[in-house]
């Protein structure tokens, strides 16, 4: 077997079996052999189909395709040329066939977490032959490790399918996946803006949940045709009739033609496909207009530059076209153009109504931001597309590398993540105890955790994160208003007149037996009761207004655990209100620990203060001197503890045979010291920071 064939074989078999991160081995394996070729396909971004797909021509290195076939000359889109020596099968090639705009359907699936969106998406891919049964990975669209583990979809992705409907006509269906979690409503709005229709998937036993509602409203705002689908009808607890009535009642949607489905069992899939063809309006054929394409996702590929996912709204785009990004003003030449099916497959040209991707050696992350409009340099559109809103971060925290040398790497990693994630904001921050890091803004707590985990997993960074904070508005004595998302930067008490904090309107949908416990939870979190109504006989919607700061902690976890997982929630910002807030400072041996400072409500200050001092006492090891730990509000100490001095740390014996071993022991102890953060003369273990920060998340 020649080298090329071996690599090809490896790419087909190995990664299918290995978890995604093992793909790295393959990269290392291939690279030295690939002199003279760019096997960029092996380097596809981890989040975007890194797994080779047998039968998918997209796995052929794009560089070599162009090498061998020269310029792609054929006028028709299906003319993507593959070298015969590489792959003999090109099943599914016909889904690249051009169809008139009237036969294109762009749709997404909206659903509450766990209502079966991913399973349904998988089934649609299988039934249309886009992905064969054999190569079907479960939940194909949820590609990131993280998504798989958490069972949720974070980054949206797209898939082009070919479906020959009962009318005998071939249709091109573009499924654009949407994230399900409340933190990602911005991303949902992006994908919905690229569609004309949506499947509303509701679990036939669980019924309508808080997020179902939120996403339906987003879809209605985007004027989408909504097709109700009742999923999991095969389960014993399913009651599709009841749930159908529930949707009609709560959402106000006509459900007379709702489809009964079991994605798992393959029931109702054909009906769904027919319904998409029949009900979702085709995109307008505006191919003759100047190009306007909406970017709904993008990611960075180290070999091809930024890969942009877009929906062509007007006009057409061809390979080698000169394009311009209207917001950034930057111009590029299209190097590679293709569709997602669900792997990347190259084509020559895309027309109004189609969904695809492009690569144009875009090096700067800021040049092709999600939400921007692509137009043609030669024939510029008059106006950029609207409907995209800038994501506003709601939760902030400090991210610091444990190893100060990783600051540069952290900056690069954040730059790359930001490309995928327009909602991620960051700016440099430094603190005496933690060194240099970044203050980062997130859509919500889940978003924050995901970014942290991705930084650690994908970029190999070891991070310390401070407790999340919201944006406070401080009315100062000099009549200015200061916005503050970092407790350390809160103006001194003497300079403040009052502090306002963001409040959210929170809607919890719960079986009636948990109403009491959830109201208690909201009350504990300074919630103000607004309204309660029964949406069915057994389920109620409870609405509270409560401070966002109370929500960013473990509110969602509590809601889930107190309702045994049955309740769901959704929130939206309701505005700012004055609150009686104070800043707690933690002093260790008289030195303030900036990153541990927290803004809390006055009524909670004492309890939080006590909990924090106790935790620190437990976790800071004894040192050579006594260490006082204090929590203060301004200069007033509200809680204190002390760690008594270390009494004895000595090796009794050290003779000839012991020397190497004892030296190792002492060196290990020295290494431990290096990992500690010095606060004045006190060495604080990383763990203590982490634990206090976790505690703050819970109690603050």
């Amino acid at each position, binding site marked *: 077997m020649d080298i090329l064939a071996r690599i090809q074989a490896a790419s087909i078999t190995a990664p299918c079996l290995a978890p995604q991160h093992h793909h790295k081995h393959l990269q290392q394996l291939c690279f030295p052999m690939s002199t003279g070729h760019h096997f960029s396909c092996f380097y596809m971004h981890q989040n975007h189909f890194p797994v080779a797909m047998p039968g998918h021509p997209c796995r052929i290195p794009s560089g070599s395709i162009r090498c061998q076939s020269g310029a792609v000359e054929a006028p028709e889109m299906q003319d993507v040329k593959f070298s015969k020596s590489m792959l003999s099968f090109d099943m599914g090639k016909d889904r690249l066939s051009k169809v008139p705009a009237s036969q294109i359907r762009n749709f997404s699936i909206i659903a509450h977490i766990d209502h079966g969106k991913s399973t349904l998406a998988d089934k649609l891919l299988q039934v249309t032959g886009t992905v064969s049964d054999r190569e079907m990975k479960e939940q194909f669209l949820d590609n990131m490790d993280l998504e798989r583990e958490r069972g949720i979809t974070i980054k949206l992705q797209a898939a082009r399918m070919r479906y020959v409907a009962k009318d005998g006509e071939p249709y091109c269906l573009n499924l654009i996946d949407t994230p399900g979690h409340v933190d990602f409503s911005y991303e949902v709005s992006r994908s919905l803006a690229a569609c004309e229709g949506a499947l509303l998937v509701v679990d036939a036993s669980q019924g309508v949940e808080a997020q179902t509602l939120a996403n339906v409203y987003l879809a209605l705002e985007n004027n989408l045709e909504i097709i109700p689908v009742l999923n999991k009808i095969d389960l014993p607890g399913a009651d599709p009739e009841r749930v159908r009535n529930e949707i009609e009642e709560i959402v106000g949607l006509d459900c007379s033609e709702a489809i009964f489905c079991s994605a798992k069992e393959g029931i109702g899939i054909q009906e769904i496909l027919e319904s998409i063809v029949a009900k979702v309006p085709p995109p307008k054929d505006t191919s003759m207009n100047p190009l306007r394409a909406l970017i709904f996702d993008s990611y960075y590929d180290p070999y091809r530059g930024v890969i942009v996912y877009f929906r062509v709204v007007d006009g057409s785009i061809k390979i080698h076209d000169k394009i311009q990004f209207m917001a950034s003003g930057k111009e590029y030449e299209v190097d590679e153009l293709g569709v997602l099916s669900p792997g990347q497959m190259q084509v020559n040209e895309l027309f109004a109504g189609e969904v695809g991707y492009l690569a144009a050696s875009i090096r700067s992350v800021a040049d092709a931001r999600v939400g921007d409009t692509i137009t043609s340099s030669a024939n510029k559109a008059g106006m950029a597309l609207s409907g995209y809103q800038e994501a506003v971060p709601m939760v902030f925290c400090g991210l610091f590398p444990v190893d100060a040398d990783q600051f540069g790497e952290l900056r690069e990693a954040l730059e790359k993540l930001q490309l995928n994630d327009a909602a991620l904001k960051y700016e440099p921050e430094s603190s005496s105890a933690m060194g240099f890091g970044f203050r980062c803004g997130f859509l919500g707590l889940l978003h924050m955790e995901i970014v942290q985990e991705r930084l650690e997993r994908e970029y190999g960074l070891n991070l310390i994160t401070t407790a999340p904070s919201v944006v406070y508005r401080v009315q100062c004595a000099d009549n200015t208003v200061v916005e503050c998302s970092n407790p350390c930067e809160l103006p001194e008490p003497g300079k403040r007149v009052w502090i306002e904090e963001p409040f959210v309107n929170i809607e919890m949908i719960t079986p009636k037996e948990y109403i009491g416990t959830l109201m208690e939870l909201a009350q504990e979190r300074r919630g103000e009761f607004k309204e309660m109504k029964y949406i069915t006989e057994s389920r109620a919607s409870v609405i509270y207004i409560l401070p966002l700061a109370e929500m960013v902690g473990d509110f969602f976890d509590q809601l889930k655990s107190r309702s045994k997982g049955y309740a769901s929630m959704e929130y939206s910002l309701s505005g700012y209100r004055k609150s009686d807030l104070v800043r707690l400072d933690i002093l260790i041996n008289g030195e303030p620990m900036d990153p541990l400072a927290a803004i809390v409500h006055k009524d909670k200050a004492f309890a939080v203060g006590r909990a924090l001092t106790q935790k620190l006492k437990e976790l800071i090891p004894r040192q050579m001197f006594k260490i006082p730990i204090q929590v203060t509000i301004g200069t007033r100490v509200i809680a204190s503890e002390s760690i008594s001095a270390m009494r004895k740390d*000595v*090796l009794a014996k050290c003779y*000839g*045979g012991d*020397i190497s071993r004892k030296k190792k022991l*002492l060196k290990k*102890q020295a290494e431990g010291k290096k990992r500690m953060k010095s606060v004045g003369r006190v060495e604080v273990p990383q763990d203590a920071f982490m634990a206090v920060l976790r505690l703050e998340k819970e109690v603050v």
Partner: protein
Amino acid sequence: MEMDPGTFDKQTLKQFLGLGVNRVSLGVQSFNEDFLKACGRSHGLQDVYEALDIITGLNVSNWSLDLISSLPHQTLEHWEECLREAIGLSPAHVSVYDLQIEEGTKFGVWYKPGHHPLPDEDKSASFYRLASSLLREAGYEHYEISNYAKPGFQCRHNMVYWKNQPYYGFGLGATSYFNGKRFSRPRKLKGYADFVELCINQSSDNFSANEEYLSFYSNTVESVEDRVCDTIMLSLRLASGLNLNELSKNFGHELRVHICKSFLPFINSGHAVAVDSKFKTVPPDTFSTALSEQSASKVLKDVIFIRLTDPDGFLLSNEIISSLFTDLPIK
């Protein structure tokens, strides 16, 4: 020679002495029957006194006695009794070891350091302090963290280790140290036999080739960093402390200044002392001022030794030594 009570009679010892053995170190461990049992010794109190009779009966004046502190259920009163008994026997040398619980041993399974029935850290420290004060009162010099001797009776064998001087060790698993290399012989008899045979085959009369061959077995090639660490770790076990002149001679003047700086907080806190060429203590203020001045090098030349204080510095020696390691400028 290390000997345990109950393992020899008068005849045996006499023969050993006849072979040239000039010092006996007796592993007494405790003068309390219960504690002897508790620390898993096979001998009883009776054996201890019989052994002592044999030693004194043969007029061995250079003998040493080992004691263990921080045994399960031990109280300060028990410990004082034990120390007084030892002092009453007037050995030339006393070794006092704090019980170290090693993982993988029976003790490691039964007990957790600092937790009942083992004494807590504070109590264990007070045992150490008591030993230091009682033995010093009785005329013993506390010359190493765990060792006390009447003048002239320091253990010459062990001083070689603490002064980081070269030595040979023979036998299964024995370690040697020469030419800056630490070397450990095979631990098992079969391996040892092979090793010896190879040595013979390699070169029976060419010592340097032999040594080269031995270096093949050396698992640690001591780097400069290792040698600095060895010097710090070992010399600070001794009451005499770290010899700065030797340090600069071996590793350069910069390291001397660097290490003095690392010592500053410990000198200020009373855990270490700087000593000048006349063996006078340099006051912390003088030391600190000397370090902060441009002419630091000149004043520091006067400081010849830095030693840990007894008992405060000795008790926290690991903490101090590991801090010095952390500060070392070498990677």
